[in-house]
């Protein structure tokens, strides 16, 4: 059976497979081994297929492998499904991207990732009463024939538009109040707002290890202050969302 190489992570040390005991089991029940180039290594294992199946079990196993490696080494997790033909290809990619790998490894060194999701039950319609719509501000629209259906349609639309604006302003204010102190305590952050109407903030933070406790305490404090919001903080994770390079063009 033809075998391929699944690459899990790039490590900032020249790890010898024989040095790594006990061995970590990779996907398809093959042990993880290390392919070195200069002072970095790739953690790889043999897999049976070039296109990996996606299932929650496989994804959990994949995460566990990276997590086990991360306990020992500073690393850059590779995207799920990064499969190459052979070890020579793995070395080639390390040669080509060596300086990118080194730069990224420096960024994530001694840092952990945390994920924060904030849920809010605010609804756009809650803002109807407190919106600032005033027809007197739209003189030309006001002057149109009052019987015109188009005039009344536009007035409704403008009112709706203003409600949405004040809703988004409120959400922006909440996000700012939460994100601003956390940004100060983190090294890097990625923020997406309004992932769904309820998840108003989905953020990942890269935090220096010595700042982890302070970071978590700050979120506990914000949670106590914002009783109407729901929080989900997870971590510490390997730096999945802070690897700023792609090897997409080199994988099968």
């Amino acid at each position, binding site marked *: 059976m033809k075998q391929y190489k699944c690459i899990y992570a790039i490590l900032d040390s020249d790890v010898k497979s024989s040095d790594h005991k006990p061995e970590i089991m990779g996907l398809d029940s093959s042990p993880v081994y290390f392919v070195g180039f200069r002072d970095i290594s790739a953690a790889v294992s043999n897999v049976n297929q070039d296109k990996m199946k996606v299932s929650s079990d496989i994804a*959990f196993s994949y995460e566990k492998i990276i997590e086990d490696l991360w306990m020992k080494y500073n690393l850059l997790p590779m995207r799920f499904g990064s499969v190459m033909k052979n070890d020579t290809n793995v070395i080639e990619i390390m040669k080509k991207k060596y300086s990118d790998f080194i730069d990224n490894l420096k960024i994530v060194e001694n840092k952990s990732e*945390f994920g924060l*999701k904030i*849920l809010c039950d605010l609804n756009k319609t809650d803002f109807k009463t407190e919106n600032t719509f005033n027809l007197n501000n*739209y*003189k*030309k*629209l006001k*002057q*149109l024939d009052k019987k*015109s*259906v*188009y*005039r009344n*349609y*536009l007035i409704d*639309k*403008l009112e709706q*538009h203003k409600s949405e604006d004040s809703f*988004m302003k409120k959400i922006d204010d909440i996000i700012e109040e939460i994100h601003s102190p956390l940004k100060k305590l983190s090294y890097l952050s990625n923020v*997406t*707002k*309004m*992932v*769904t*109407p*309820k*998840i108003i903030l989905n953020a990942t933070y890269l935090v220096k290890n010595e700042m982890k406790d302070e970071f*978590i305490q700050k*979120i*506990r404090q914000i*949670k106590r202050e914002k009783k109407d*919001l*729901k*929080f*989900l*903080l*997870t*971590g510490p*994770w390997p730096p999945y969302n802070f690897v700023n390079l792609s090897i997409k063009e080199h994988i099968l």
Partner: protein
Amino acid sequence: MSDDKIIIQSESIDEIAEELEKVENALPNKINADPDNVESGLSKLVLTLIELIRKLMEKQAMRRIESDSLNEEEIERLGETLMKLENKMNELKEIFGLTDEDLNLNLGPLGDLM
């Protein structure tokens, strides 16, 4: 996700999982190519895109009214166009048996389409 990774959790994790599923389901990953359903999958995708463009036009129109850059005649014409467009979309949704929820699309930082 294993429980030992959850540091702070206000509510059941199921609620968050449900919300995240909505994002995944907002647009089909693939058009359903089953001969019986292909029309439905394709029409959902096409109408979602048309609705996105219609909403953007509407937003732009509101901005123009707010900036006072249109005369009365233009405002009236704009109202007529937007209203007819919305009515036509409603007709199309009815024809293809789709609701506003079906055409909802998360636009990331811009929020939801609907």
